[in-house]
């Protein structure tokens, strides 16, 4: 009379994360489709449903009449406990179908600390955890997203990876799947058929050999269908590219519960620590006109009360004033809010923000990233102290009294003097407040400084660097804290242990797959969540596998070492990254793509900013 699910849902914290049925959810008859695709996000519903890429691919896949794409999220531990207790396998939200019944199970990899959830989800689904154990009839497990640019830590787990922007290539994979399904071949035959597609990587088709010092000796294809180098896929034309007509509107509040407009992909700036700044090259924009139309359509379809722009640096959008004029008209009519993150402060943006009220509540954010000019030149963050103080002056005069400053600790070549300069800079920003005329000041000023830990990432000029060890990071955090002596300045910092683990997996190789499996066995999951992260258990898992985490995160590599991701081609060349690394050591700035193209290699894709002028 009552289903087990009724009983379970009444006893968990957030039942709406497991019901599906939200507005905008795609309903299809599974029997009428040839391909069932489980789109899995290895984190909670609230996090996953905030993710733009998932929304685009979900709707895009469902545009195909032959395919039904359904959503799957990591159940929160209270739900997982009950599912395991009642033998309920991981299921999709749309039709509550067991994930093991799907044809293709695709994960999106947004951050390294979600890898244990991916393994746990396979386990909950009853799918074999490693690619080599997976039998005929089991789903194909694939992964994509920003972390897939170094797929190696998951090489033994996923059957294949999608590199770059999935929008195009995923359709080609599905076409091959249909062909294969009708023809009735082996698993291997399907993987061989897609290994030939650009942007598809099948890790089992490559052998890795190692040197005595554990570095990689060679990376060689072992299958005639495997390409020696796998090039990422991108959409050459971002203008007019696919965007859903509507979005799913979750019942409960999610992390980003609003219409998000992706105004462009990539970034012209080339901050040397930033992986996104390189892997998404070249910059490609949507047109202001299509974005305004999209905003109107999505507000009408979802009823959301807020629109937010999304990009790596809003101010670099070439038609920004046309876009904001159009959007401001739209939001006034529909009585919705407009939020404008990552806007550079100048007279134009100040005037704009005076007209957009949401900014008023949240205060403004600056990211100088480093305390001294020298270190900012090392990381190619083209912001001077004077820029920052001028902006602060504008902001305070504009009536804001809350400023957030983002810094990174542990950057290459950083000294204790650089760290102490963080506090000095924060004090100067505070002083800028007291320098404006008294009658323009509010009651108080509040500068919140936050320091994340630098983690070297693949495909950046810092990919060869050693990451600071935990003790050094703790010491630097302490020093940064000590450098701030004002009541008006608050300081927060990132957990050093999480960054340590992130650093291991960011630049890991395929030997880490076994560590991941061991950690899963040891109960690691939701590592990105403070309340579940168990660092000691991770250390134990490394030890059990005889793998040294320091080999991956705290070792400086030489330029000629074979890196685990060297077989992947993002367009930006290794030579360019190396020259950027050398320029970093001499604190030489590199101009952005619009000031002067420095020939990074990304022009091979034949589009975007490289061909603007």
């Amino acid at each position, binding site marked *: *009379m*009552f289903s087990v699910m*009724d*009983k379970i*849902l*009444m006893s968990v914290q957030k*039942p*709406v994360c497991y*019901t*599906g*049925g*939200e*507005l905008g959810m795609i309903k299809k008859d599974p029997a009428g489709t040839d391909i069932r695709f489980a789109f899995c996000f290895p984190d909670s519903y609230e996090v996953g449903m905030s993710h733009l890429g998932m929304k685009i691919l979900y709707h895009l896949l469902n545009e195909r009449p032959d395919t039904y794409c359904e959503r799957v999220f990591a159940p929160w531990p209270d739900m997982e406990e009950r599912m395991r207790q009642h033998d309920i396998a991981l299921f999709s939200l749309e039709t509550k179908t067991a994930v093991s019944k799907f044809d293709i199970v695709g994960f999106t990899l947004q951050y390294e600390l979600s890898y244990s959830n991916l393994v746990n989800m396979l386990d909950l689904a009853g799918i074999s955890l490693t690619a080599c154990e997976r039998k005929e009839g089991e789903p194909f497990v694939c992964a994509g997203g920003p972390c897939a640019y170094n797929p190696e830590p998951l090489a033994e787990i996923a059957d294949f990876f999608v590199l770059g922007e999935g929008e195009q290539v995923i359709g080609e994979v599905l076409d091959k799947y249909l062909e294969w399904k009708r023809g009735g071949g082996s698993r291997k035959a399907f993987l061989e058929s897609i290994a030939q597609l650009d942007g598809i990587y099948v890790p089992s088709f490559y052998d890795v050999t190692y040197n005595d010092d554990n570095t990689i000796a060679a990376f060689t294809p072992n299958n005639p269908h495997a390409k020696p180098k796998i090039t990422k896929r991108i959409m050459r034309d971002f203008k007019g590219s696919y965007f859903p007509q509507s979005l799913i*509107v979750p*019942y*409960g*509040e999610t992390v980003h519960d609003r219409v998000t407009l992706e105004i462009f992909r990539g970034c012209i700036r080339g901050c040397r620590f930033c992986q996104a700044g390189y892997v998404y090259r070249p910059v490609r924009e949507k047109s202001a006109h299509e974005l305004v139309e999209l905003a109107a359509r999505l*507000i*009408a*379809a*979802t*009823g*959301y*009360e807020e629109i937010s722009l999304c990009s790596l640096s809003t101010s670099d959008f070439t038609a920004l004033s046309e876009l904001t004029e159009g959007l401001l008209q739209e939001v006034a009519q*529909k*009585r*919705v809010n407009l939020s404008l993150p990552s806007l550079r402060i100048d007279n134009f943006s100040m005037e704009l923000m005076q007209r957009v*009220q949401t900014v008023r509540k949240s205060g403004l954010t600056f990211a100088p990233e480093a305390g001294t000019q020298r270190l900012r030149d090392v990381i190619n963050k083209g912001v001077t102290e004077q820029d920052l103080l001028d902006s602060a002056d504008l902001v305070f005069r504009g009536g804001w009294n809350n400023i957030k400053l983002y810094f990174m600790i542990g950057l290459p070549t950083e000294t204790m003097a650089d760290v102490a300069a963080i506090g000095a800079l924060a004090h100067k920003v505070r002083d800028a407040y007291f320098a404006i005329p008294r009658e323009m000041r509010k009651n108080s000023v509040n500068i919140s400084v936050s320091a994340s830990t630098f983690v070297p990432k693949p495909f950046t000029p810092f990919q060869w660097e050693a990451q600071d060890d935990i003790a050094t990071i703790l010491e630097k955090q302490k020093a940064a804290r000590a450098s701030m002596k004002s009541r008006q300045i608050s300081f927060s910092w990132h957990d050093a242990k999480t960054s340590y683990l992130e650093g291991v997996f960011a630049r890991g190789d395929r030997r880490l797959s076994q560590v991941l499996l061991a950690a899963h066995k040891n109960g690691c999951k939701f590592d990105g969540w403070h309340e579940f992260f168990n660092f000691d258990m991770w250390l134990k898992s490394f030890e059990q596998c005889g793998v040294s985490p320091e080999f991956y995160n705290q070792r400086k590599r030489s330029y000629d070492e074979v890196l685990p991701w060297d077989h992947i081609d993002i367009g930006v060349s290794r030579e360019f990254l190396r020259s950027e690394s050398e320029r970093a050591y001499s604190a030489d700035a590199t101009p952005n793509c619009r000031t002067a193209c420095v020939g990074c290699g990304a022009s091979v894709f034949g589009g975007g900013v490289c061909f603007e002028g």
Partner: protein
Amino acid sequence: MKGSFTYRLRYEKNHDARYISHLDFIRLMSRALRRTALPVTYTEGFNPHPVMTVAMPISVGVTSECEYIDIGFDSRLPEGEIAQRFNHTLPSGIAVTGVVLLGTDACSFNAITSARYLVKTEMKSDTAPDLDTFLGLSEIIVAKKSKSAVREVDIKKDIYALKLLSHEGRFADFAVETPAGGSYNLKPELVFAAMEKYLPGFGIAFMQVHRLSLLAQGKALM
């Protein structure tokens, strides 16, 4: 209520929609309202929001066929169109089942005095509870949570109705009427907690509460 035309909507909340919390539900309704593109009245001030009031929200997990919301509109609208536009855009499990234009004499949500429920239960044994004995008790004391504290109260006078509707094996359905409203409210769950306390051998393994109606002095709201 500031809108020149206030409409009262009755809607049902069934199936999975029962897990939506009150706060999420308010957000859901204001988004649905924006999607209908009806001329809703907004509050004035810095952060305008639609003029709407929800009557006596139910707890998470309870289904209902008698939820009410009053919404202000800037102009007179055909009732049927309001219902139709909402039902076109509401997620599954929520549906508008009636709309009326409120006159000046309309009964406000403050006038609500009681609610009727259908309670489906799975009992811990096959024996149906002895309701005569239960209702014949001189006092029925339970621990009742208020905003600030948990207090022992006598709920005997608050059980306006309690009937066994059907019984088969461990499953039994009951009809219950208890006080509801802003000033005093008694959840039907507490009546069953009291039965567990006073009737030896009676226990509830699982229950599903469904609200049938909201009443003002014995009369349905609309």
